[in-house]
């Protein structure tokens, strides 16, 4: 059986000898270990069922019962959750196997996965460059593991799209509330979204089929779940595509040109392209960097050296003990964001920062709603640059690093679905085309991405 290059969807449909396949999978995982993308899990038993034993990876912040789950943080080192996240349960019930956790920025705070406490994931296209973040390991694995599988990542402000773009793979961020967050180690409750990352559109659609749906363990799930794979192959002519002003101008010229060329191909497929003006793009990034750390600073209050994770000899007052453990267990960026998030919610500053940002967020949502009355889909570069060198990124100041989220923060604040799909190269590194749509219009972006992918043809992934 030739597994190399097989899609997850074909794997589900074909009769595969599992013992043989999983041996090959684990060998391959050892071969690509030097990239620092994953932590292998032992499978006690290989499940089959409806998904025919399809392999999955989970971002390190998604809980699966008894499997190491550290969210990229020293403060959770050794943690083995006593329960499954809803997405993990859905995978297992459908007959999939979770064979690895993928590395990420600590608590998903980062744009290059450089803030991971355990390793720095390297980009399979150029090992001196980063994978993007925060779901960097997941995107890197999709690019380097040439065997059928699906990776689950998570996005708060662009953490699926951006690494997918940097690694030349497909990443889908669903509408907020389409996929249950139960069992996801929270970053920011009103922004976190779990979504699939794979080499092709079919496989991310399959991933979404499996994980979406109402969950009584997550009040924010909305319960409109469809069969997303069914949308693929439908006609896309007449689709109204908007190119948002500002998104192309701030990107590297070559990145913009590559994406514009891709939109011309969409036009050849029958789509209608127009330029659209958006008013809230500039305001989105500071809004995001107020709201996300504000929510994170309350979520991260639970890590205090009790019940799970990092512990010490219990002595002194609770304030001394908690402060000591947290000072020791959290990395620099986590402390920085907790400090910022605490400050913007404090008496005297709350209205100026936190409440103000919540109001601006409503204006950002309104801005998208207005534009989606005129066009069906927005198309833009996913990230303004290609994957930067790890050393260059390390030298950047916090605000400069935050600016890498400039094109993904707006749509993430609005909780609207988005897909990043590779559309060419610059400096021998992949460039991502970002397609965004109104709430619950996953099918429109999936079918357009699929039509584009068929026209673009196959990508030659680097051999490792």
């Amino acid at each position, binding site marked *: 059986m030739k597994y190399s290059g097989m899609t997850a969807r074909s794997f589900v449909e074909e009769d595969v000898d599992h013992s043989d396949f999983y041996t090959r999978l684990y060998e391959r995982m050892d071969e690509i270990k030097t990239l620092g993308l994953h932590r292998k899990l032992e499978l006690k038993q290989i499940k089959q069922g409806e998904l025919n034993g399809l392999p999955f990876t989970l971002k390190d912040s998604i809980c699966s019962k008894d499997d190491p789950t550290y969210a990229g943080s020293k403060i959770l080192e050794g943690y083995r959750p006593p329960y499954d996240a809803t997405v993990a349960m859905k995978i297992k019930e459908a007959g999939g196997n979770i064979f690895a956790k993928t590395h990420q920025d600590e608590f998903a705070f980062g744009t290059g996965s450089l803030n991971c406490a355990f390793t720095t994931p390297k980009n399979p296209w150029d090992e001196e460059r980063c994978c993007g973040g925060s779901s960097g390991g997941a995107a890197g694995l999709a690019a380097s593991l040439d065997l059928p599988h699906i990776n689950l990542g998570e996005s708060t402000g662009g953490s699926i799209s951006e690494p997918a773009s940097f690694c030349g793979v497909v990443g889908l961020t669903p509408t907020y*509330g389409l996929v249950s967050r139960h069992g996801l180690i929270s970053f920011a409750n009103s922004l976190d979204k779990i979504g699939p990352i794979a080499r092709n559109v079919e496989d991310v659609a399959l991933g979404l089929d499996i994980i979406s749906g109402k969950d009584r363990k997550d009040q924010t799930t909305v319960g409109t779940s469809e069969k997303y794979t069914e949308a693929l192959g439908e006609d896309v002519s007449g689709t109204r595509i908007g190119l948002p002003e500002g998104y192309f101008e701030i990107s590297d010229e070559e990145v913009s040109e590559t994406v514009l060329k891709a939109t011309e191909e969409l036009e050849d497929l029958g789509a209608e392209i127009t330029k659209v003006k958006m008013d809230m793009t500039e305001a989105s990034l500071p809004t995001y960097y107020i709201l996300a750390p504000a929510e994170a600073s309350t979520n991260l*209050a639970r890590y205090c050296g009790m019940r799970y994770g990092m512990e010490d000899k*219990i*002595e002194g007052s*609770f304030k*001394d003990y908690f402060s000591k453990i947290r000072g*020791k267990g959290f990395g620099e960026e986590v402390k920085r964001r907790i400090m910022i998030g605490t400050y913007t919610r404090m008496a005297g500053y709350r209205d100026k920062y936190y409440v*103000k940002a919540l109001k*601006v967020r409503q204006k950002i949502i309104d801005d998208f709603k207005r534009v989606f009355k005129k066009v069906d889909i927005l198309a833009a570069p996913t990230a303004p640059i290609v994957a930067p060198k790890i050393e260059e990124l390390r030298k950047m100041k916090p605000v400069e690093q935050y600016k890498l989220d400039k094109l993904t923060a707006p749509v993430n604040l609005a909780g609207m679905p988005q897909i990043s799909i590779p559309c060419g190269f610059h400096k021998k590194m992949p460039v991502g085309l970002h397609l965004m749509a109104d709430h619950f219009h996953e099918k429109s972006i999936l079918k357009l991405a699929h039509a584009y992918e068929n026209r673009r043809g196959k990508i030659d992934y680097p051999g490792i």
Partner: protein
Amino acid sequence: MKDEEIDRVASTASIRLTEEEKKLFKKDMENILEWFSRLDEIDTQDTEPAFHPIDVKNEMREDKVEESLDRDEAMKNTKNKEDGFFKGPRIR
């Protein structure tokens, strides 16, 4: 930003910082807060805050006892426990 302010934020967040970290975060926060001030220019007088991107409804379930985590399972991730209880530092 004054030094005392950094201490107050760190204390509210219960994080012990080293002197170097305090210096670093003070500089970074000044920089980041200045960047945040750009939002002052946006008129939000007639706008309500958006706590969620979509409408989220509060749903109640029937008040019925359901299966929950086994006590030993729930406690297996810590050494600091006694007689089926988690052990923590003194509150004073």
